[in-house]
C-alpha cells in the first residue's frame, strides 16, 4: 500500500527474520532492542476498559470506507472497525499466521487451489444490529470489483471467476462468488493464487452493509461507515478528530475489545507538536513518526529512548514518473532521472533512517534480488537527456505532500534534478490531495511516493502499482505504467505453484520493470516509533499496524 505520511507499515516480522530479510529492528516491546519480539512484559492489563488512547496525525484519514482505504494512515482503523473472513494473528509472536475471523474456520481449499469454501459465523452483527449473512459478504466482495468503487486493490480480485465480466458490465454478479445458503460462501479462482488468503485478509475484504452504503452514497466514506469490528465509529469531525469506542455487540465478546474505553485520532497536528504532546502526556502515539529535527536528541535521551521502537520496513520510497506525460513518455528521460539521483544524500537527510535501494522489491521481501541498473552518474544522465532530445533539460512540476520529511526530501530531489538541467517547480499539497491527484490520469508528472507491503508476497509490489489492470482512475500506479509483456510475465509468476522457483524468478521481473524505469527506487525506510509513558501493551503488527486491543493506559 502507499504511504500516507512517514508512517508506514512496519515489517520484518519473525517470519521475515527467519527468511533472512536481515531485519535489525524486529522489536515490538518497549525496550526497543533488536530481536525482542512481543508486547511489554511489565504491568498487567487492568480489568475492564478505561482510558483514552490519543493518536495524532498531520492530516485527516483519506477514507473510512474499506473499499477505498489503501494507505498506512487509515489502515489500522479498518482492522479495528471491520471484520474479514480471515485475519492475521495479532499477538506478540507476529508470525503472520492466519486465524479465522468472519469465518468459523480456515477455508477448505480444493480444485487444485482454485476453490475456497468458507463456513460463516452466525453471530456477527453490524453496529446497527443487522445480522451478517453470506449475501453481505458477496455484496462486499463484488463492491471491490465494481469499477465505480474505485478500490485501489481491485486488481487483486480479478482472478475470481466472472470478475472481469462483472467489472465490464456484462454480468450482474460475479459468478465465482457463490453463497451456499445463509452461512456458506464459495470463491472460485481462474488460477491458483498463493496470495489469495492475504488478499482476503486486507481491509478490502471486510464485510459492509449494502443498505447503509447505498443510503449514504458519497457521504458513507467520511461519516456513516457501518462495520462489525471490535471498535465502532462514534464520531468523525472532518479535519478535527475521529473517536472509536468498543463495540458492545462484538461477536468475540467484551474481552476481545481490549482495555481502552476510547480511541481518539486527532488531526491537524504536526509531527513536532505530536512529539511535544507525547512528551507532555497529552497524546500517546504520533502516526507520522518522530520529526527529523528531534530524532537525534530523542534517541539520545535516556528516558525517551526506552519508549522508542524501530522496524526495518518492507517498503520502498521512490520517484514515480508518469509514463503518459511528456517528457516522461520517453524511457531515455526516465533512465536519465535514475542516473541523476544520489540516494545516499537523501538517506542522510532523514538521519540515516533508511537503506539505499536500487530495486523495487525491498530486501526483506521474499523474491528480492540485488542489482543496480543506474548507478549515480549525472554525466550519463545529461547524455541520455541529450539523446532524448532535451540537450538543455526541461521544465516540469514536482508534486509532493506536506507530511513529515516529504517536502524536504522533495526539495533535495528537485535540487539534484537541477544539476542535470531539469527545472522542477515544487508543488506542495495536502497528503490526501496528492493521493487523489496521482490517481488522476495525466495530472502529476513526477512525485515522491512509497509503497509498503500489504502482505509478504512479492506480487504485492507489482500487481497494484505496475500492472495494466491497476492503471485506472484512483490508482496507486503513479507512473500509469502498463507493459503487456511485463504483465504476462508477472501473471505467470503469480500463479506459479512452485514457491521456491517462483521466488527465484522475481528479481528478473524486478529488472524487467526497472529497464523501463517508470520509477527511481530511493531507499527502504527504517521506521522509528515512540509512545507516551502512560501507554502500556504497545504492539505493532507488520500488516495491521497498531493493535489497539492489546494496549491500555496505565
Amino acid at each position: 500500500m502507499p504511504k500516507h505520511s512517514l508512517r508506514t507499515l512496519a515489517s520484518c516480522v519473525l517470519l521475515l527474520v527467519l527468511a533472512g530479510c536481515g531485519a535489525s529492528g524486529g522489536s515490538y516491546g518497549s525496550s526497543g532492542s533488536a530481536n525482542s519480539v512481543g508486547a511489554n512484559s511489565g504491568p498487567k492489563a487492568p480489568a475492564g476498559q478505561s482510558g483514552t488512547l490519543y493518536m495524532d496525525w498531520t492530516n485527516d484519514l483519506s477514507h473510512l470506507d474499506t473499499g477505498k482505504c489503501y494507505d498506512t494512515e487509515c489502515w489500522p482503523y479498518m482492522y479495528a472497525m471491520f471484520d474479514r473472513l480471515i485475519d492475521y494473528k495479532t499477538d506478540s509472536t507476529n508470525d503472520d499466521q492466519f486465524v479465522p475471523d468472519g469465518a468459523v474456520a480456515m477455508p477448505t481449499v480444493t480444485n487444485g487451489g482454485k476453490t475456497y469454501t468458507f463456513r460463516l459465523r452466525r453471530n456477527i452483527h453490524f453496529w446497527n444490529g443487522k445480522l451478517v449473512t453470506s449475501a453481505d459478504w458477496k455484496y462486499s466482495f463484488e463492491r471491490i470489483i465494481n469499477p465505480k468503487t474505485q478500490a485501489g486493490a481491485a486488481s487483486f480480485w480479478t482472478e475470481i471467476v466472472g470478475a472481469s465480466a462483472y467489472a465490464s458490465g456484462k454480468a450482474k454478479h460475479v459468478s465465482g462468488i457463490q453463497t451456499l445458503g445463509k452461512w456458506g460462501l464459495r470463491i472460485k479462482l481462474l488460477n491458483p493464487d498463493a496470495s489469495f488468503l492475504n488478499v482476503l485478509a486486507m481491509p478490502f475484504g471486510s464485510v459492509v452493509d449494502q443498505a447503509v452504503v447505498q443510503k449514504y452514497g458519497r457521504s458513507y466514506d467520511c461519516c456513516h461507515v457501518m462495520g462489525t469490528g471490535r471498535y465502532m465509529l462514534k464520531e468523525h469531525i472532518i479535519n478535527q478528530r475521529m473517536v472509536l469506542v468498543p463495540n458492545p455487540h462484538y461477536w468475540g465478546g467484551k474481552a476481545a475489545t481490549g482495555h481502552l474505553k476510547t480511541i481518539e485520532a486527532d488531526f491537524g497536528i504536526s509531527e513536532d507538536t505530536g512529539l511535544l504532546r507525547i512528551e507532555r502526556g497529552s497524546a500517546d502515539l504520533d502516526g507520522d513518526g518522530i520529526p527529523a529535527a528531534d530524532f537525534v536528541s530523542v534517541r539520545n535521551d535516556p528516558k525517551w529512548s526506552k519508549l522508542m521502537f524501530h522496524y526495518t520496513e518492507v517498503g520502498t520510497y521512490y520517484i514515480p514518473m508518469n509514463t503518459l506525460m511528456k517528457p516522461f513518455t520517453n524511457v531515455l528521460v526516465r533512465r536519465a532521472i535514475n542516473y541523476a539521483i544520489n540516494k545516499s544524500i537523501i538517506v542522510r537527510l532523514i538521519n540515516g533512517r533508511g537503506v539505499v535501494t536500487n530495486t523495487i522489491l525491498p530486501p526483506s521481501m521474499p523474491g528480492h534480488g540485488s542489482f543496480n541498473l543506474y548507478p549515480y552518474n549525472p554525466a550519463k544522465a545529461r547524455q541520455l537527456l541529450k539523446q532524448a532530445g532535451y540537450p538543455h533539460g526541461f521544465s516540469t512540476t514536482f508534486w509532493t505532500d506536506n507530511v513529515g520529511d516529504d517536502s524536504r526530501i522533495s526539495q533535495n530531489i528537485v535540487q539534484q534534478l537541477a544539476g542535470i538541467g531539469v527545472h522542477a517547480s515544487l508543488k506542495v499539497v495536502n497528503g490526501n490531495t496528492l493521493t487523489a491527484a496521482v490517481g488522476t490520469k495525466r495530472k502529476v508528472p513526477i512525485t515522491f511516493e512509497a509503497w509498503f507491503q500489504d502482505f509478504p508476497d512479492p506480487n504485492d509490489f507489482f500487481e497494484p502499482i505496475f500492472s495494466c489492470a491497476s492503471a485506472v482512475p484512483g490508482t496507486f500506479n503513479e507512473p500509469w505504467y502498463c507493459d503487456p509483456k511485463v504483465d504476462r510475465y508477472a501473471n505467470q509468476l503469480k500463479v506459479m505453484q512452485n514457491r521456491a522457483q517462483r521466488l527465484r524468478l522475481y528479481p528478473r521481473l524486478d529488472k524487467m520493470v526497472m529497464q523501463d524505469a517508470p520509477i527511481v527506487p530511493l531507499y527502504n525506510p527504517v521506521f522509528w516509533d515512540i509512545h507516551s509513558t502512560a501507554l502500556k501493551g504497545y504492539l505493532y503488527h507488520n500488516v495491521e499496524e497498531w493493535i489497539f486491543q492489546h494496549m491500555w493506559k496505565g
Partner: protein
Amino acid sequence: MQQQVANTFALEEMARDELLGEPEGSVWQRVLASLVRDKAALFGALIVLAFVLVAIFAPLLAPFNPDTEFTNGLSVTGAPLAPNHHFVLGTDDLGRDLLSRLLYGARVSLIVGLLANGLAMIIGVTVGATAAYAGGWVATVLMRLTDIMMAFPVLLFAIALIAITSPSLTNIIIVIAILYWTTTARIIYGMVLSLKEREFVEAAHAIGASGFRTLFFYILPHLTSVIIVYTTLGVATTVLVEAALSFVGIGVQPPTPSWGNMINEAQSYYRADPWMMLFPGIAIVLTVLGFNLLGDWLRDTLDPVHSQLG
C-alpha cells in the same frame, strides 16, 4: 484665467512663508538636517538603506548560492550545522548556507514590499480620491466597499485567496495589494474631501479643467507627502504579511528563500537548532522597525502642520 490661478498659488505660498517664517537652505538640506537631528529616524533610515543595498547586491554579498545543498552542510546524523567558520550563520535542514539565504530573502521582501505596497497605493488613492471628488452614490458605493474589505480578517482572507489561486510570488503581490488598499483609501478620501473645497480647486473649475484633470493634476499633488509616508509605513506591513503567508506555507514556495519560509522550515528545529529561526526573525524585526521609524519621521517632516506644532 490661468495666470490668475498661478497668482493665487503664489499668494498662498507667500502667506504661508509670512506666517511660518522663511526657512534657510534648500529643501533637501533641510530634510537631511532634520534626519540627522532625529537619532531614531537616522537609525531607521540606515536600516532601510542597508536592507535595500543587501537586496540589490545579494548576489555579490552572498558567499554561496542560496539553493545549493552542501553535503558538508549537515552533520553525519543529518542535522543542520551551527554557525561556524565555513557557514557563518550555520546551515538549514538541507545543508544550505543560512547567510546566503538570508541575503537573498531580502530580495523577496523588497520586491513584495515595493510592488505590493505600490499597487495597494495606486488602488487606494484611486478609490479614495474618486469617491471623495465624485461624491453622491459613487462615494457611497466605493466607501462601503472599502468598509466591507476592511471588515475581513486580512490573513484569513489572504489564505483563502491564495488557496483558490496558487502560491507564487506574483499571486502574493496581487493578494496583498487587494487586501491592503483600504487604509490608504480612507485617508485619501478624507483629505480630498477637505481639499476639494479649496479656492484653487474652484479656480481650476473656473478655467475649465475637467474633473479628472482637477483631481489628478491639481488635488493629488498636494497629497504627495501623505502618499510617501503611508507607502513607507506600508512596506513594513507588507514585509510582515509576506513573512506570515510564507510561514504558513502559502507564500513564496521553496526552494526560493524568503524570511517567512525560512522560519517555516525552521519551526521544527527550534529546540535543536534555534539559529535557523533566529536570524530570519531578527531580519524581519529590524526591517519592519527601520521602515516604521523612517515612516514616522517622514510623516513628521512632510506634514507641515504637524511638524510646526512639534
